[in-house]
C-alpha cells in the first residue's frame, strides 16, 4: 500500500523556534486519520506543509508520492480545507463553484451542485453571509468536487456549534463511504475524532508523540490498577505511559505487545480519550517549560 502522507525528519523553523521538529510519519492510504494535539503543537504547520503553503526547513514530505505543490496534478490530488474555512466574502456560493470549475480540470459540477442542494445552501447567497457551519460545508464541497485522492482538513469544525459539527462529520463520512478518499483531519476535540478516525497521530510541542492504527493502539495499551508499587518494578516489556499513585494504590497506563498476566493487576482496556490524554501528559512532563512552543500559525 502506498503511503498517503509520508514525512521524514520534517521540521519547520521560525526564527529560533521550531513549529514542527523531527516529524517522521507514514500514513497509509484509505484511512481517516486524526491529527490531535493542543493548540500550537504544530498541527496546522504539518498540514500547511502537506499542501505546499509552507516550505520545510528540514526533512522531507511527500503526499500521494509527490512533493507538495509540485504542479497542477499534485495540487489536483489534494482537497484542502484551511482553518476557519476562508472563502471570498463577496462571491456567491454558485460563483465559488464556478471558480472550482475554472481552476480544477477534474471538477465534477454535477456532484458539487447536488451536494449544495442537499445541504440546502442558496447558490446566490454571498459566502460572507453564510453561517460558520454553512461555510465549512461549502469549503468541503469545493474540496470534494475536484475529485481528490486525499482530503486534508485543518480543524474544520473547531468553531462550529455541535449541530453544525455533527452535520459536517456526517457529510464527510458519507463522502468517504461513497468515494473512498483518504482523510487527514486535525482537531483538538478528541470526541469527534473518536467517532470517525481509524488512524491516529498525536502531536504535542512540535513532536509526534504517537502514531498508528487506532485498533492496534487500543489493543496494545492497558489500564492497570493494583496495590502500590514503583514504576521500576514493572517488567521491561511494559512501557509506562502514565502513572498515578495514592498511599495504597497505583494506577498505570502501559504499552505492551504481550498480554498482561500478572494477577495482582486489574486490567482494563483504554479508550482513545485515555490514550491521547496519557501521551499528551507524558509529552508535557518531558517539555521543560511546560507549555507549547508557538502560537497558532496565522
Amino acid at each position, binding site marked *: 500500500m502506498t503511503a498517503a502522507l509520508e514525512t521524514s525528519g520534517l521540521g519547520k523553523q521560525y526564527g529560533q523556534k521550531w513549529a514542527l521538529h523531527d516529524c517522521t510519519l507514514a500514513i497509509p492510504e484509505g484511512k481517516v486519520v486524526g491529527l490531535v494535539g493542543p493548540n500550537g503543537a504544530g498541527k496546522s504547520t504539518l498540514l500547511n506543509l502537506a499542501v505546499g*503553503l509552507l516550505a520545510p526547513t528540514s526533512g522531507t514530505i511527500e503526499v500521494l508520492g509527490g512533493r507538495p505543490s509540485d504542479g497542477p496534478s499534485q495540487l489536483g490530488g489534494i482537497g484542502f480545507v484551511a482553518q476557519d474555512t*476562508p472563502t471570498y466574502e463577496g462571491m456567491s456560493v454558485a460563483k465559488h463553484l464556478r471558480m472550482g470549475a475554472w*481552476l480544477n480540470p477534474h471538477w465534477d459540477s454535477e456532484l458539487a451542485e447536488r451536494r449544495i442542494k442537499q445541504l440546502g445552501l442558496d447558490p446566490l447567497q454571498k459566502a460572507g453571509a453564510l453561517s460558520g457551519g454553512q461555510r465549512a460545508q461549502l469549503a468541503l464541497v469545493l474540496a470534494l468536487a475536484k475529485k481528490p485522492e486525499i482530503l486534508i482538513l485543518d480543524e474544520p469544525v473547531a468553531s462550529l456549534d455541535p449541530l453544525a459539527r455533527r452535520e459536517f462529520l456526517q457529510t464527510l463520512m458519507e463522502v468517504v463511504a461513497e468515494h473512498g478518499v483518504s482523510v487527514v483531519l486535525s482537531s483538538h476535540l478528541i470526541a469527534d475524532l473518536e467517532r470517525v478516525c481509524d488512524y491516529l497521530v498525536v502531536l504535542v510541542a512540535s513532536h509526534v508523540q504517537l502514531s498508528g492504527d487506532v485498533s492496534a493502539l487500543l489493543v496494545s495499551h492497558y489500564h492497570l490498577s493494583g496495590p502500590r508499587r514503583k514504576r521500576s518494578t514493572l517488567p521491561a516489556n511494559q512501557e509506562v505511559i502514565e502513572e498515578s499513585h495514592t498511599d495504597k494504590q497505583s494506577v498505570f497506563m502501559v504499552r505492551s505487545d504481550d498480554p498482561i498476566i500478572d494477577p495482582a493487576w486489574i486490567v482494563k482496556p483504554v479508550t482513545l480519550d485515555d490514550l491521547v490524554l496519557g501521551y499528551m501528559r507524558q509529552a508535557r512532563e518531558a517539555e521543560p517549560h511546560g507549555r507549547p512552543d508557538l502560537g497558532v500559525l496565522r
Partner: protein
Amino acid sequence: MIRFTSFQFRIQAAIAVGVLVLVAIVVAITGPHLIHLYDTTVANCKAKGDCSSAKAALSSSDSFLQTALGELLLVVPALIGLFWGAPLIAREFETGTFRLVWTQSVTRMRWLAVKLGIIGLTSMAVAGLASLMVSWWFSPIDKVNVSQFTSFDERGIVAIGYAAFALAFGVTAGLLIRRTLPAMFATLVAFVGARLAVTYWVRPHLMAPVKTAIPLHVIFGTSLEQNSATGLVFFEPVNIPNAWIYSNEVANNSGHAPSAKFLESACHSLLSAPSGGVQSNTPTPNPNSGFPECFARVAAKFHQVVIYQPASRYWAFQWYETAIFVGLAVILAGFCFWWVRRRLV
C-alpha cells in the same frame, strides 16, 4: 485562470472604463473649442499683430480643465498602484483566501502570471488611453506654450511606464507586507519617491545636454536687474522653443558673468535715470533711457551661454523614461515570481 481573474477584476475594470469614458466625453466636448480658438486667433496672429495677447488668451483658457486633465495623468498611475496593485496579494493574505485559491489545481506561478498579465496590460492600456486623450486635448495649448518639457510627465507615453511601475510595486508591497493599507501607503511613498528621483536625478542625465553661445540681442525681457542676493545682474531671456533649458547665463569668453562693478559703470546712465529704474521690457527701448548704451557695452564683452536639451530629443526622453519605469516594473515582477515560488513563508 484567465476567466477567474477577469471575473474577480470586473468591478475595477468597469470603474476604469467609466473613468475613461468620462474623460473621453469631456475631451470630446471641450477639445474642439480650443482648436477653433487656435485656428481663429493664433493661426493668423502675425498678420493681425496681436500674437502675444492671442497666445496668452488661449494659454489661459479652460484653466480648471487644464489643471484637472493634467493632474489626471499624474494621479492615474498612482491610483492603479494603490487600488489594483497593493490589494492583489495582500487581500488574499488578510482574508486567508490564499489558502483556498493556492490549493486549487493552479500553481502559484500561473496564478500570479495571469493576474499580473491581465491587470498589467489593462493598467498600461488605461494609462496610455488617458494620456492619448489628454495630449490631444492640450495640443493647441502646447503649440502656444512651446514648453513641452515642462509638461513632460503629463503627455506622451511615460504614463504607461508609471502605471506599470506603480502596479508592480503595489503587488510587491502587498506580497511582502501582507496587509492592504500599509501596502498602499508604502506604494504611494515609493511611487512619489521614484517619480521625484527620476525627474530630478535621472532624467537630466539621460543624455548630455547641448551647450551653445549666442550673441546678446535686445528682446522682450532683456534687462538689467537688482538681485537681492547677488546685486546687479544682466539678464537675457532664452528663446529656444520647446527646448529643455538647464541653464542660461550671460558670460564672457572665460565664462565669467559681468561683475556688479562693471555693470555699474557700463550702465551708469541707465541706473541714474529718474524714470522707473532698471528694466527694459520692450524690444525697442527708449533711446533716452540709457539702456542702449548699457546694452551695447555689455554685448561687446559678453554673450549668452545656454545649456539645454533640444526639442528634437523630446521623444527620445519619453522612450528612455518609459523604458526605465517598465524595466523597474519587470524587475519587481520577477522578484514577485521568485518570492511566491521559493520563499512565501
